[in-house]
């Protein structure tokens, strides 16, 4: 073996060693990433069945501590077991209120006990969000009315967050028309991991696109994972 062959062998060995290091690092890194991903997706948290589509952008009214706020023509999705509304509040004491979902004269669900402030869900412009569990869980979509009975002391006040509307199209306070509608979120019963939520998620991703169906969700998954595989493959292959 002459000197130049020795140098070439040395370079090749060095290159092989670097490639080995890179592959090992990639393998460990991607394994850690996969574990983090599984842990994140296994984390159970509340899931929304829907919203009424109105942004919680404007303070359109101030309700006294004792009043009944009603909103007609709400589309409440099947599986709803709680609702969440955004309010500005004068104190953070346990909220005292009751909710009634009705269609015509038929009460479909009610809730009072267990209402709690939900600071994690409060948006930056809303002071607080309040979550109120309902019973029973709705078994089908309901187009009906939501009435929230505020049962706090007379000294308390609630700021109503939603969007402004023309009088007659908005919510009512003790039968009197308000110039806006509340933002309302509808929540499923209990907490769910992303895994159990995946079929719902795939169904939702399949809507609102140029084509629809579960193929949209599958394509998204493929497009998220293929570049990772390609990038890792390229990096593990050679030095340039």
């Amino acid at each position, binding site marked *: 073996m002459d000197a130049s062959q020795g140098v070439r062998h040395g370079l090749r060995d060095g290159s092989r060693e670097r490639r080995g290091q890179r592959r090992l690092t990639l393998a460990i890194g991607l394994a850690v990433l996969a574990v983090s991903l599984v842990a994140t997706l296994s984390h159970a948290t509340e899931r929304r069945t829907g919203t009424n589509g109105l942004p919680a952008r404007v303070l359109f009214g101030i309700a006294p501590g004792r009043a009944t706020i009603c909103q007609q023509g709400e589309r409440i999705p099947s599986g709803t077991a709680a609702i969440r509304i955004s309010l500005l509040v004068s104190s953070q004491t346990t909220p005292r209120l009751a909710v009634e979902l009705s269609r015509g004269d038929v009460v479909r669900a009610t809730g009072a006990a267990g209402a709690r402030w939900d600071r994690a869900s409060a948006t930056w412009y809303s002071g607080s969000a309040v979550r109120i569990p309902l019973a029973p869980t709705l078994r089908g979509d309901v187009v009906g009315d939501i009435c929230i009975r505020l049962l706090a002391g007379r000294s308390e006040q609630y700021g109503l967050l939603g969007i402004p509307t023309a009088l007659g199209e908005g919510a009512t306070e003790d039968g009197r028309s308000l110039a806006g509608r509340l933002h309302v979120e509808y929540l499923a019963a209990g907490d769910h991991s992303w895994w159990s939520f995946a079929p719902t998620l795939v169904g939702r991703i399949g809507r*609102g696109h140029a084509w629809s169906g579960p193929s949209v969700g599958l394509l998204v998954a493929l497009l998220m994972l293929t570049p990772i595989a390609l990038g890792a493959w390229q*990096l593990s292959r050679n030095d340039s």
Partner: protein
Amino acid sequence: MAAQSQRQLNRPLAGAAKPQSAGALAQLRGLLARVPRAAWVCALVGVLNATAWAIVVPAFQVPDEQSHYAYTEYLVQHGRPPAAGAVDVLSSSENAALAGLKFREMQFSPENGAIWSASEQTHMTDLLKQAADRSDGNGAAREVGGEPPLFYALQAIPYNLAEGGSALDRLQLMRLLSALLAGVTVLFVYLFVREALPAIPETWAVGALGVAFLPSFDFISGGVNSDALLFAASAALFYLLARGFQRGLTDRLAVAIGTAAAVGLMTKFNAIGLMPGVAIALLTMSVGRERGLRPRTLALPALALAVAVAPILLEVALNITVWDRPAFGATASNYRASALHPPLGETLSYLWQFYLVPLPGTTHYLTPLPFHDLWVRGFVGWFGWLDGAFRPRVYVLAVVPLAALALLAGRTLVAQRRRLRARIGELLSYAALVVGLMAFIALASYISYLRYGGSIAQVRYLFPLLPLYGALLALAARGAGRRWAPVLGASIVVLAIAHGLFSQLLVLARYYA
């Protein structure tokens, strides 16, 4: 391997000495054949990532997408670009699509998701099917009406391809074109890093993949936004300049640099911010070539600038004679400086704090800590209409890896300071490109502040500098020395992958959960 890389580098890419008789197509094929496979793979990663974002993000939820779509629609329907105006009027067809897609309910409203229910889908489909006028808008005259037409002329191709479909079909095809441009950007980032850092071939892919997985870049490139073409033009410009510094400025390279600059200038006003740096770079290269400043020294820079300016002059001529627009669109845009006479001190104060932090005793125009609140936050991820964000602690924790990358890159530069001294002209040219663009964006924001009280601080406006970010990642990979470069390089790419993946999950949760 290093010797092989050097041989690869010595093979001409632009300005190749081909026989004059060879056809342009054959020359192009020859050029493309010399692009390394690694660059193509990185580009493909960029295209696929941007395509994923193009599907994940609901229609019109990329900033200003409705305006860019409106401009394209106007161009197709009227055969000419729109003129700047006081208000945006969208076409009936686009308005129906926006209503069906819950655009206004979702915009700036993280509490509202995309279309979830069958009834919403039916409502959307009904609205999209309605026959609606596509020519009664003004092309988003206020938002983008004064901008140059190149990006929109390109987007007219997918718009026309989906002629028989709905607005949603057209938008989706237009998004795919933007995703292809993301691939072009990544390709040129790879080539730039290869050209600028020829001694560390093992890090070229690290720089390019770091850009390809950058979620803010993929998010913008997954939407219909003229920034996508500006990123690509700027990346090409950086590559060509680096090539000029490495191998010398030739006639062909000067023309290529001028062409890349022209594409940028015909895409978005922001490209103006790069021009001082381009001029300095050309002059520096030319002085090096002629070994001094003589009249002949200016010949190639003048050639490049002439090529860059020629399409602008053509546009000005068309604006005046055919299109009935102001000669220079910028003079009628939101960022026109006419009738504004701010004191110099206040202007400088704004420029300083736009990127860093307000100095004591100065007026506070933005947030308490703009560097972190606007730029770090934007870089880490601020999606949709700035309504898709991580939890606050993520932005605090993100400072750690970002600072580590900066320190590692700095360490490499210090270790290589002797080599750097020999390339000081090149480094100063890149610095001029950075300063020029940053100053332009900050001034535009200051005009916006004086005129409307708003700020335009968004990290995407700095993405024409992505090639330098790619180079920073490549330098960081060598920050702990040659021995650790493979480990560091792979770690940086894994970090970039994680960043991209969790950002996509965040956006999925924002719109669909």
